[in-house]
């Protein structure tokens, strides 16, 4: 089974003396609002896209439609929610027609989509009225941001604005609730914990094949660092460094301040984040605000 790794958060706690106060953690509020941009399209794609209203062919799964709307705090799992969204989509598109008509409608869409590109169609996410919605679209012709992160010490969690339980660490849940909407605005994005049904091993396994394309073709990759290696005091201690060697030297001098604390930068310790970085052409490094209460 393909499971994105979990980082050393629990490991860290084991080595951190219980009685010791936690060192100050980073609280960098992310303020940049993502503005959707038009992705430069290939010549071949442009020719087709100009003739077709591409976005009309996207299959959209929205919680706003009919019976799929949850009635209270999310207890729905991703799979059942996604299935109900498909039902909602069918109702929305066929407009009173029978199911056969719906199928015809779908089959009318697919060949055109396949003609557009050889790259696969995957699920993306976006926020609409502060609620996450998923939609399927071809990778090559979608303007989206990809997220690179480590799982940390995950559990299934309910997060405001997300209509299903999410497999995430406490810190990542805070990031998704507090920071993610501002980073992506109303634009499309791909983040494995939100756009891949983590309870479905087949879906989790199949996405592995597509991950190189996902990060290669994203408008940019946002790399979400954990607050577990470079603390505020570390950043202050290396202020003004100009070279990688100077950073190493200043960090070394500062290390005495962490005699009792583990400094393990999870983002630099996990395998998948290496691949995600190497496949990206543009990487923006951020940390979560870590301030949800």
């Amino acid at each position: 089974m393909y499971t994105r790794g979990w980082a050393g958060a629990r490991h860290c706690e084991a080595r951190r003396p219980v009685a010791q106060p936690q060192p100050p953690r980073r609280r960098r509020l992310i303020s940049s609002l993502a503005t959707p941009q038009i992705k430069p399209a290939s010549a071949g794609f442009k020719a087709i896209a100009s003739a077709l209203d591409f976005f009309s062919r996207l299959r959209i799964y929205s919680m706003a439609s009919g019976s799929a709307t949850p009635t209270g705090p999310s207890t729905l799992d991703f799979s059942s929610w996604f299935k109900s969204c498909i039902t909602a989509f069918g109702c929305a598109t066929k407009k009173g027609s029978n199911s056969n008509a719906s199928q015809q409608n779908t089959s009318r869409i697919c060949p055109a989509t396949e003609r557009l590109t050889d790259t696969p169609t995957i699920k993306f996410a976006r926020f609409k009225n502060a609620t996450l919605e998923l939609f399927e679209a071809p990778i090559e012709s979608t303007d989206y941001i990809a997220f690179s992160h480590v799982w940390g010490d995950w559990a299934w969690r309910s997060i405001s604005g997300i209509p299903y339980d999410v497999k995430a660490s406490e810190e990542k849940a805070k990031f998704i609730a507090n920071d993610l909407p501002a980073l992506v605005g109303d634009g499309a994005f791909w983040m494995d914990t939100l756009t891949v049904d983590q309870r479905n091993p087949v879906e989790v396994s199949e996405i592995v094949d597509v991950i190189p394309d996902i990060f290669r073709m994203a408008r940019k990759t946002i790399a979400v660092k954990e607050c577990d290696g470079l603390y505020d005091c570390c950043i202050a201690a290396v202020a003004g460094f100009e070279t990688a060697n100077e950073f190493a030297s200043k960090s070394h001098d500062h290390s005495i301040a962490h005699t009792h604390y583990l400094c393990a930068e999870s983002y630099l310790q996990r395998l998948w984040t290496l691949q995600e970085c190497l496949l990206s052409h543009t990487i923006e490094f951020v940390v979560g605000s870590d301030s949800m209460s």
Partner: protein
Amino acid sequence: MVDQNSDQPKKLAVREQALGDSDIYRHQTDIQTIALNLKKLANSFCGSQSNTFIDEFVKAYVHGGTVVNPRSAKRSQHEDIHSGGFLLANRASPRSATMPCDYIFATMPSFPWYTYPKKEALSMSFGEIYSDLYQQAERSGHAFTCRFTRSMLDPICTDPTDGWLPSQYLPSPTTLGDFLKLMGNRVPKASNATSPHVHITSDVQIMELESECLPDILIARLEACFEQSRTPWLESYTSGELPKLGKYPSHHWTCNHADAARCGWVPINPEYAAQVYDDGDHTRTRTDPRLEFEEGDCLVDISSLNETELEASMDEAGEYVPLFAQARRILVRMWFAYEGQSRPGAQQEEWADFKRSMQDLWSTPLLHTVLLLAGMVNCRIPLSAAAWVNKLFIPVYIRHNEDLLSVGLLAKHARQPKQQRKHPFHLLCVGQHLPSPHEKAFGNDLFLVGSETKVPVGLASDMFHERHSDEASVRVAISLYNGYFTDLGDNKVDIGPRLLSDEPSVPREAYIVGPQ
């Protein structure tokens, strides 16, 4: 170690707090590791670009910012894991993933020649995925050498072609570095006994650890290994692999009966197995140093090797420092003392003090395990596979010529039955990279091959390293290609190795050397 079916978070081994290794410089190591890993990431992302670009990457990471790579992230048909220095940069990488298969699935699908086994991925073992990768690489012109062949694990696999294929029973990697160590270097075609690049470097004498070996002799031989194989030792240390179970060996350590039994040793005089004494308010149990061991006769079921890894990870918990941990820590102190030779000081004193404390306490299992781990580092085998290797291989001295003695690993099944064993005996040391100025892997990926079957039965140390000077390279080449070279002087040597396919098959008995 891994549970392929569970959907729960995997708890990491708790070795750090369990083994009680009080490393007062841990904070420095942590920070150095962050700086090193960050620089490696920057290097890998920026490729051959200038240091300024790497500096900008580090700044963006630390302070939060954006970096743009003008290079295309799309891989071409000609690229593979060996391209662009990726393997060299990450061979010591401590980056980890949850599942062993992730090490292949997080690195290979970016290459257009690799097809992800989408439908079967969920049910395949790591060894099966590795074999599939090996075959795909061969078919698409990206063949590489494997480390553990079928013939090394299965005594009945003596086919000169199939015997060279990777075994489907491989140790599970725990880091990216582990995985990359399981991948050898590029070769023109997959190797087998008739490949035009598979050649004999020399006939070598194989010797096991003597039953009455003096620790000082073993230590002197291992220090010679540090000299020959400095690069893998340095990589293993700086990546945190070697000191992972601690840096400070326990003084006055004796081998626990149960621990030794798990590692395949049986007591000769079990009456000394436990000694109970009262230490004030506490009654403690300690093994009597007079307890001696001999190697047990255990048959290994290769289909249950995963359980070996599970056992090993369980051994890491508890107050008693297990045999593997003590042996590893001894190698750390030994390496420190060796590295600090040019500026004698605390490291040498500490090492000398340890040797004094351990006088008369060295047991055969401890010496054997120290040699086994040293052989693994020499042959670039991940130390996380120590329990696995211990079940299937024994450490051996390999005498290439009078000047060159290395430590390697020999499959247990390649030895004669216990009562018929004679030492030394001969094997062929076989290379897979022909001597050439353009062959970067020359002198590496060396196998020990049976002269009768022509299939690999063991691993020899990598002999050539990036840091070797011309003079050192020639010296090693002369020793390695003992009898198949012409010294041209001026640091030049003409090597004319024999192809393995040209070698007549020689019955094993003819290669046993008589008493000397």
